[in-house]
């Protein structure tokens, strides 16, 4: 057994024959089959934990064609497709952990004073709200991914998930690439689930009569899931031929043996693939969970496993700050590579990237003081002209990030004007 420190490139990567390398523009194929499909709009989130090192993040210039800051440098190849937003804020509430809130409440549509029983301003997150509108057109209403490779279960569920159906009801992410793959493409697995759905639904209805109010809320989650699974089966069955035509194979390499960048890119490929093939239009990806004081290896970036969270609190030390900047740069590089893959996919006159909004963000700005003001926010793509790119949009201080969520939701075609503490849509968007 030789599973050790070899840095070889896998002979047969998962990417071959799928993802960015999928040769046929998928929509063309479908249209060729007579399907009346125009390129849909999609949205995806790329979440990095613990904030970013501030100085290296913020560009000196604003407006069009702004000069990229050191951390944003990796975006050069897609700079015409991106826009930067500054001065967007979140509100931290007392009583629960800052990092848990950063993760769990980043996309929340709750107002800061609207606390769940567990003490979080946590309601259905914006990705799920968007999926309520656009998710019924695709087999999967949304897709939640995570590159949490920690195995020590150190933190609670709030640190580890950004997507929620509601408080207490997490849209649990998948972290194993092969499981993502099977969920998307093993149609038979889904179809086999069909036969018992009526039976278990009847059992659930039986229970309804005897439960208390909180319990009913839990049972409702089950019934919702039964409905979702049912719809998935119906819709994925309709897409059976398309999916079979892809002829792609499951990743062979064990995800636990992947390098950090490889792992993130494989997950990125799966996300791109799901969006490209219109299996879903809403996706979120948590690159790493919040806090989690466990050393993690970043091959070829640092020699030894590092503690991201620990560093963020120690960034007054210039040496540490430099290291932190390297890590931010690494994450931005990963984001940029996924953007480039999206850009390489043609969709008629446009590219996949043109037809989507791919948002890079974090629930904290600086991790040092758990600050939630001026959150790092980049959007790649413009959802077919819905927002001005290649621009640094500097907003008035104290603009709620909820405004951005409203704008994104509107750009995705949702009729939403207000959520949480939002004060209106954001400048820079067409709608």
């Amino acid at each position, binding site marked *: 057994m030789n599973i050790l420190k070899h840095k070889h490139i896998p002979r047969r990567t998962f990417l071959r024959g799928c993802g960015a390398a999928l040769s046929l523009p998928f929509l063309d194929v479908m249209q060729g089959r007579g399907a009346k499909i125009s390129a849909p709009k999609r949205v995806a989130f790329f979440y990095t934990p613990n904030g970013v090192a501030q100085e290296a993040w913020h560009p000196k210039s604003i407006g069009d064609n702004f000069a990229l800051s050191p951390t944003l440098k990796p975006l050069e190849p897609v700079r015409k497709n991106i826009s930067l937003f500054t001065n967007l804020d979140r509100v931290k509430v007392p009583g629960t952990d800052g990092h848990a809130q950063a993760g769990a409440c980043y996309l929340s549509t709750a107002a800061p004073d609207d606390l769940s029983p567990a003490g979080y301003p946590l309601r259905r997150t914006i990705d799920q709200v968007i999926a309520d509108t656009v998710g019924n057109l695709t087999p999967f209403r949304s897709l939640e991914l995570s590159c949490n490779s920690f195995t020590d*279960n150190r933190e609670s569920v709030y640190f580890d998930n950004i997507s929620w159906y509601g408080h207490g009801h997490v849209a649990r992410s998948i972290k194993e690439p092969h499981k993502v793959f099977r969920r998307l493409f093993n149609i038979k697995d889904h179809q086999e689930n069909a036969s018992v759905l009526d039976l278990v639904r009847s*059992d659930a209805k039986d229970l309804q009569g005897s439960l208390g109010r909180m319990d009913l809320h839990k049972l409702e989650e089950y019934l919702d899931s039964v409905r979702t699974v049912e719809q*998935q089966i119906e819709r994925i069955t309709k897409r059976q031929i398309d999916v079979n035509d892809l002829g792609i194979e499951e990743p062979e390499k064990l995800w636990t043996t992947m390098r950090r960048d490889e792992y993130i890119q494989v997950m990125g490929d799966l996300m791109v693939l799901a969006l490209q093939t219109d299996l879903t239009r809403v996706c979120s990806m948590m690159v790493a969970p919040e806090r989690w004081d466990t050393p993690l290896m970043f091959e070829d970036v640092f020699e030894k496993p590092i503690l991201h969270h620990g560093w963020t609190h120690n960034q007054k030390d210039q040496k540490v700050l430099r290291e932190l900047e390297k890590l931010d740069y690494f994450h931005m590089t990963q984001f940029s590579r996924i953007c480039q893959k999206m850009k390489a996919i043609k969709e008629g006159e446009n590219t996949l990237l043109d037809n989507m909004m791919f948002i890079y963000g974090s629930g904290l700005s600086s991790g040092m003081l758990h600050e939630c003001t001026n959150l790092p926010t980049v959007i790649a793509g413009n959802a077919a002209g819905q927002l001005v790119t290649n621009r640094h949009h500097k907003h008035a201080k104290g603009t709620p990030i909820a405004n951005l969520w409203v704008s994104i939701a509107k750009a995705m075609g949702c009729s939403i004007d207000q959520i949480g503490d939002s004060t209106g849509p954001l400048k820079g968007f067409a709608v």
Partner: protein
Amino acid sequence: MKYIIWIAAIWALSQGNIQAIERFDYHTVRKKTTLSMPEIYEGEFLSEAGKARPQDMRGFGNDWSGNSHLLWDGLVGDSSMLEFEVAKAGKYAVSFQWTMAPDYGQFEVRLNGKLVEESLDLFSPLVGLARLGDPIVFELEAGIQRIGIKLISGNVQAKKFRGTGYLYGLDYIKLRDLTPKLAKVKEIKEADAFKIPEVDFVKAQAIMKRHCFRCHGANKVKGEINLEALTSRADVLKEVDLAHHAMEVLDKAEMPPEDELQPSKAERVKLASFFEGVINEYVSANTRLEPVVMRRLNRYEYNNAVRDLLELRGDIYPLPEKVIRSSEYFDPSTGRMPKAMSVGNRTLGKFQVERQILSGADPFAIDLQAEHGFNNQGEQLSIPPILLESLLKLGRSIVSAPEFDGYTALTETLFKENGQPLVDRLRPFLEKAFRSPVKDATLARYVAYFLAEQKLTGSYTMAMKSVVGAVLASPKFIYVAENKYDAGDKTQTSDYELAQRLALFLWSSIPDELLLDSARKAELHQPNILERQVRRMLNDRRSRALSENFARQWLRLDQLITAVPDFDRFQVYYSRIGCEQWKFGLQTMIEPLLLFESVQVEDRSIMLFVDSNYTYRSDELHAWYTKPNAPFDKRGNRSRFNTFTQTFRKRHLRTRREGGLMTTAAILTMTATPLRTSPIKRGAWVATVIFNDPPPPPPDVIPEIEADDAEIAAQGLTIRERLKQHATDQTCASCHARIDPLGFVLESFDPIGRWRDNYRGGRDIDTSGKLFGEMEFSNIEEFKDLILDQPEKFMRAFIEHMLSYALGRELKITDKPAVDRITRRVKADHGRFSTVVVEIAKSVPFRHKTGQAELK
């Protein structure tokens, strides 16, 4: 949650009427004889005696009480000393039941020095029980009784054991109490025993004015706490959580801070008891318990539930939750942990799977622990679509696994057609699966589903498998549902619900037939039946779940998995040089769990978690502690330790700086950072796990100190000095004053848990500090002594952890009366493990449910 007992103790102390406490030796608490035979002391349960060990006698027939006896061997002239405990003084008729065998010797037997047998010949050509000895009358004092057994010779016909000596076997000792029964001694009324003088609001306010208002008053409101705003007892009653908090910080002398004017001991006690009085008034008026949110089974519970429902030979899927890979040695019915056990652990990854699994059965993701609790809280356990998909698939893949038919014991009785009416099969199966009586409509649904599947597949077996697959994904199986529709304030659980709670608590599984039977008879709430069931369940191997699920989470042991002591500085932590993935250090996880299991199996005192004179280690792990420079002897780098199972042995510790949980390498390593110790992390662990007093989340400003202790040493400082320099900020100081000493005391252990006399740079280690702000200690031994001297503190913390686990929710102030009561009982029984479990099972919150109607 704090505490009458402690406050009463301080009060008594302040009145000057308590003498120095003589410490109880918690090692003397051992498993009692079975309840059904109160006069029998099983040989195999008698305390430690040199070479004596229990022997399973089932191979020789069914005559032995408890199916085993105590076996000893030695040379002529050798003696063995056995001990047993008698609860009360009196006159007893004592008789011995010995075993005879071909290689057994002749013995002189004395009880407390008095001759019992001058020459007892245990030789017999066949292995069997001797005639029960004639009773001899003894006057016994309460407490430990000693039996001396001396090997004086061997029968000429006897065969020498191993060619040199002889054996004896003792099945049991029978004691009949000859003292005439007196009228039952009246139990001291619990409330009277701890009566605290009532302190009125005016007096309390006067103390607060002197000592609290400066920071928590109208002028300055630190921590958003304004005590001056409370102008009457009624005001305090409205702020019961604040009163609770105040009582806690007074109790632990956390407030007022050290640099403020300190109240006298009497004032402190008065003020604390004022708050306690208010809390007691509150909880006696507000008996409504926090409702439990319906939870679903987590991955570990699901595995156990399916295993027990389908009577599988092993697990369904591999469970990283099982740290120790082997359960052969774990048999609580023996009342003894073996002296040595061969075990593996996850160090060696997937090759260390202990039992078979079903191929193709894919486990769903692990559920994460609540911040200060376990992973069984309903609010945090949901069923999103992807989990439902997993469950649907899992149910199918279990019954269709290629090994399944040989893996389940139900192949003949459930899956193969034998003419038995379908409903007669399905009804009991569904009852067991859903832990409740089966309604006709439900039964009809499953019958219809069966018939449809049978029609579709043409196979009885296939149809039954489909039914089972569906059952395993049904909300009635997955959720721990209780009928709360019309449950009011506080309603007794139904018998089925209580059975379900018990099975989850003790086995992380579903009730077995005996529990269901008690539920059907509606007798489970009867205290004696409930206790008997709990003790039976503790004696069952399935109670291993308490170690695998409860103890692992209580200790937060998972955190060790990804600990990475610096590879260059702590090469010994890794198995092979040049190989960072293989961590020898993960083997250390086994040690605290085996200690936990020994306390559970032998029914010892939970105080051994604080301090024990024994532990379990492999030879290599033992050398790791004792020979830090060469733990692997001469073995080279390639394979420095045995990569398969390891033999862990019970070892008596020579020094009190080891023993208990806090000083095990696993805990000490996971609370260190790669290049140095972290007194704060260690302190926070002790506060959370040992005292159930988790520190509040750190403030936003948490600058860290250098990551490498070499850099600190280069400044001529110790870590402690560096931290002190660092924590000058007032906002940090009050918390650190509380957490840090709990970590400093462990500074004499290096980042991977080995003892060190000095820092590497040569500086002395200062481990001194104060516990709860007032009791001084200078090292780990004294620290443990302080905890042992006020055992109720740790006992209460442990009880709170376990009660929260048993209920699947956080505790609230309304649970205080129950915790108080359990703590009193456990304390009176010196922390006996089974007393904790039994009292929790009998407690009001465990046996009752609360309606949810008024909730948000």
